[in-house]
């Protein structure tokens, strides 16, 4: 059952992912991104990480995507103009590289499935309590450093968006 669900949602995530890149209308592309995030959240749940699944939905689908949609609406709803045709050599090279990557990942995925490495420490426990314990002990420094990163970003956004210098 879980395997069937995994393949169903993984495939759906891929379809939505392709749509994000392929659709020319920014609004539809953003909505496809919601689809990708929803599918990923299901995958997290299937992996036994219900907290991450919920955070994925709340933060990405909820907050970030709404922000992106706001920006799209503010900037006006125009379809992306079609990019000028690429040179046939460029197209060929791109295709070759893509196929190469695809082959690599397919082969790689095979090895990955056969040689699964157990995670050190913690095991499969990933409830809210366990995450909280980790964040405030072993990962306290990165956690606090992220707050400085966010502050720097906020200060910078303010600096760049100010109406007047002085």
């Amino acid at each position: 059952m879980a395997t069937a669900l995994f393949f169903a949602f993984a495939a759906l995530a891929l379809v939505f992912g392709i749509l994000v890149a392929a659709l020319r209308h920014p609004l539809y592309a953003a909505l496809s991104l919601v689809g990708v995030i929803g599918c990923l959240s299901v995958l997290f749940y299937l992996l036994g990480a219900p907290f991450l699944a919920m955070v994925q939905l709340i933060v990405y689908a909820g907050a970030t995507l709404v922000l992106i949609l706001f920006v799209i609406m503010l900037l006006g709803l125009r379809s992306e103009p079609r990019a000028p045709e690429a040179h046939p050599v460029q197209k060929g090279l791109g295709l070759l590289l893509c196929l190469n990557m695809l082959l690599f990942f397919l082969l790689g995925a095979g090895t990955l499935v056969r040689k699964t490495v157990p995670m050190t420490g913690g095991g499969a426990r990933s409830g809210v309590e366990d995450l909280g314990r980790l964040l405030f002990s072993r990962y306290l420094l990165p956690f606090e450093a992220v707050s400085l990163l966010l502050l720097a970003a906020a200060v910078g956004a303010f600096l760049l968006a100010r109406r007047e210098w002085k």
Partner: protein
Amino acid sequence: MNPGILSTELVLMAGGFLLLLLQAFAPRLKPLFAPAAILTFLGALAALTLKPSGLHLWGTWEVNGLTRFFTVFFLLGGALAVFFGAYVLRRDGMERGEHYALLLWGTVGMLLMVSTRHLLLIFVGLELLSVVLYLLVATYRRTEVAVEAALKYFLLGSFASAVTLFGMAWYFGMAGHLMLAPPPPPLPKLMGMAYVLLCAGFAFKMALVPFHAWAPDVYQGSPSSVTPWLATLPKMAALVVLVRILQTLPPPLFLGILAAAAVVTMFTGNLLAFVQQDTKRMLAWSGVAHMGYILIGLAAATPEATKSVFVYAVAYALTTLTAFAVLGALTRGEHEPHFISDLAGAGFRHPVPALVLTLCMASLAGIPPLVGFAGKFYLFYAAVEAGRTGLAVLGILNTILSLYFYIRVIYTLYMKPAPVEPLPDTTGGPYRVGLGLAGLLIVFLGLAPAPLFEAASRAFDAMVTYYVR
């Protein structure tokens, strides 16, 4: 937990907060902002003595010779960059507390990158540094080239960060943890992919070919208040992470790739520096070439070679920082291009900046007795000792190639007649004193490089003892 282990970082953070609050509530104190930022750097240097050596925070936080070496390097370099940047900002009426706060926090990001082998912490440090860099380039938002440079840097840099993060995810998937450590002997095939992706992100920050395309545009467009810092210290933070990654790998896997990358990077940098008309772009390509020389040392992969890489990093950073600082003074303004031909006649009109620029060019070209020569000599010597004679010869060949465009700057300064509208010196007397001191340091470290060599040697030993233990 002993808060002393984070003393330097805490001082830098607090200094940043203070400057931010002063900007908001006491903007009249603006003339004191730059001295306060420099004092913060020096205070952080003093706080470094409070750090107890060893491994802290579940083994994720290192305090040893390596981290001390680069901490001192980043703090002094940051203080120098603030000093030069302040005069440029004042000239343009762009001085704000946020500028210094961001610079201090960016230094925290670099310290996080060099003080740990935990990939998560390295990534957070890298992002902190990157965000600060994008913002500092964009602060001159009325200057079109600066905004263009910031956008290019932001888009390419975010892509590179994503690649690094992807590499970290692969690493986690294969190794089961996030600590950089030698993988168990039968190396999983896919681990190679993880390492390639990881290295790509840091190679981007170092502007190694083929991840170099951003450098000329960003250096040219970024305001002279940040270029000296942007072009030097962040590269070194990425270098330390790259060295740490390579240290964990069994050598035969990557030496060939590194040697090839070294040759391509050197030739690309030097040949393209040849044809540049803009001094900042020329220095950007020269920076690419210098990272190529550093790769020779990494490809040689002996202890001596790695030590020489650290020495070379300091030599490159000091010289390039000073050279960009001179360009910040001799300019018609941030909106204008910095043509090499504009420097004509400046040699006698502005003796101090011109002399310092001459020293910088000679040091970058590797002319004795300057610090650039000490670095190059040690590096090529170590490469030959390691049996990498071919690479060393190619490196020396590149050095000879590079003489052309470095000496062209000196030639333009002193031999070309001044144009009708000669280049003004836009910054004041203290700036010239600072330039003079930096120039003296370039000469002094070239004449007496022993302390630098010893410090680099201790840094390397600290890095290796960890793996032996």
